[in-house]
């Protein structure tokens, strides 16, 4: 069975800048796949290539085995979504806009307008011009527009950006609900919490390169093995702890890298040295920390960075 998304070696250059640098992505059916990276990392450019809006300089993407470069919009059957903010005609009403895109979809899309408006909770504002819509309403109209295609794969580019907290919560609930219906979702985001909450697999991208691709829990687990230590004498404790693993200062204490055995030995050593332990807890790196270590790390080589992070 062809994967909903299979991209191999995607490259897009703008002059001297390589916006997307040999990106490989595989999104399997049923995934809620997080495409995570800071602004300007190349997320949107990748999505544009997947949707056939721009041509890759190298590599190819296939959606359910169909290449948008070769098949044009025929490769988008069963695929919907938007890049950057969804855009509509400001001088037409929400419903008219949906009627327009449905007419360009054919295949019964027009019959789904009412339902789509209900799903995104816009039915009562559908008669108003989009020009008067708030940012959040436009985002929701974008989702409604995507649903008209009865998609099996949804590509969403930072769908919660610019929404207020309630809007974000509702949007995430909506994405979870759509994923629950069996729609494969590629969610691009720079919000760690969002990806942790919604996604089971992630690709982390920085400066156009994929720094990590795989299961989210594996990524987080790979960064285990760090302990937070609070004592009555942090300076002396740091000296002792350095014999057992790498030590770093954090506000109000230290972190020590090590496994269970070395931490047990460290606690005994601290006790013998007369340093009181007020707290010694395993600390799981959050996705945010992993992300920042990967995307801001000093190493110029992405894969090398991954090893550092995994360590």
């Amino acid at each position, binding site marked *: *069975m062809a994967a909903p998304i299979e991209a191999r070696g995607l490259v897009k250059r703008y002059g001297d800048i390589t916006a997307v640098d040999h990106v490989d992505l595989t999104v399997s059916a049923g995934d809620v796949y997080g495409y995570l990276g800071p602004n300007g990392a190349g997320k949107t450019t990748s999505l544009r290539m997947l949707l056939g809006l721009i041509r890759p300089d190298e590599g190819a993407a296939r959606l359910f085995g169909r290449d948008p470069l070769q098949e044009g919009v025929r490769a988008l059957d069963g695929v919907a979504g938007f890049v950057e903010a969804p855009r*509509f*005609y400001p001088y037409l009403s929400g419903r008219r806009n949906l009627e327009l895109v449905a007419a*360009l*979809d054919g295949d019964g899309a027009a019959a789904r307008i009412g339902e789509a408006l209900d799903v995104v909770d816009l039915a009562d504002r559908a008669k108003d011009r989009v020009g008067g819509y708030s940012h959040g309403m436009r985002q929701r109209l974008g989702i409604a527009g995507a649903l008209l295609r009865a998609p099996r794969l949804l590509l969403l580019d930072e769908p919660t950006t610019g929404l207020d907290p309630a809007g974000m919560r509702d949007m995430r609930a909506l994405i979870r609900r759509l994923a629950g219906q069996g729609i494969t979702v590629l969610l691009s985001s720079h919000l760690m919490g969002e990806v942790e909450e919604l996604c089971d697999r992630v690709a982390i991208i920085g400066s156009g390169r994929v720094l990590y691709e795989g299961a989210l829990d594996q990524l987080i687990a790979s960064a285990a093995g760090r302990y937070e230590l609070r004592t009555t004498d942090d300076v002396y404790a740091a000296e002792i702890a350095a014999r057992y693993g790498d030590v770093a200062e954090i506000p109000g204490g230290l972190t020590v890298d090590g496994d269970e055995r070395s931490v047990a030995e460290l606690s005994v050593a601290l006790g013998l040295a007369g340093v009181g332990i007020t707290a010694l807890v395993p600390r799981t790196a959050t996705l945010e920390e992993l992300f920042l270590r990967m995307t801001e790390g000093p190493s110029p080589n992405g894969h090398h960075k991954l090893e550092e992070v995994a360590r």
Partner: protein
Amino acid sequence: MSAVAVPGAPARATRRPGVRAVYRWELRKLLAQKRTFIGLGSAVAVPLIFVIALLADSSGGPDELPFGSFVRETGFAVPLVCLAFGAFWLLPLITALVAGDIVANEDHNGTLKTILTRSVERWHVFAGKALAALTYTAGVLFAYVGIALVAGGLIWGFDPLTTLSGTQIDAGRALLLTGAGTLAYLLPMSAIAAIGILLSTLTRNSAAAVVGTLMVSIFVQIIGSISALDALDPYLLSTQFNAWQGILREPTDWAPIVRSAWVCALYALPALGWALTAFLRRDVTGG
């Protein structure tokens, strides 16, 4: 492009919309925009202002324009004077106003990505837009001529018209020739629209495309006024702006009409081909 179903892939769309769906919606979009009505409004207002000016001043007339000396004799002269008056500036401007916007408007609104990720091919979108721009051009032109004809006829009567050859023709033939002359003038206007569409596609900026289209129109008129370049005249777009007058001669002077047809095609078809190529190949960014 294989017709073989890919396992697990969503079913192929069975009924795919095409140029007609795009065209219908392009017309609806035009009808929802102010710009359209500014153009259409000017096309209706100018003949009315002309008629009012004639009524206010009981003796003078636009004697320097074709049919100018007959405006008070028959209503049929009014649309023809208006056509001769609007042919070089007003009507190209109104045409450029919409043609120059038809693609650039999508760039401005960021909506190209919205319509290009549905089920219509890019060339469908382009063809629908080009047809809509041409439809608007024809609509504006016939509104312009029509309102002048109705206003002129109501005031000065639908009396026989003196042709440019000095012969008299009855009302029925005058109506027929006015319609035919307008259709003949639609040829250079279509070329102007095609240039507008090209600049709209290339510049992605509505104002630049509208002004650019007018600059092209002015440029060919300047070349036409240089006597050293008289040899070029028959092939200039501006020369075709009054080719329609051949229809209003007896016998009909087909030479300028036939030349207008192929000269205008020489402008319009490459412009549309270039625009289509650019539209098909472009990266849709922004928005």
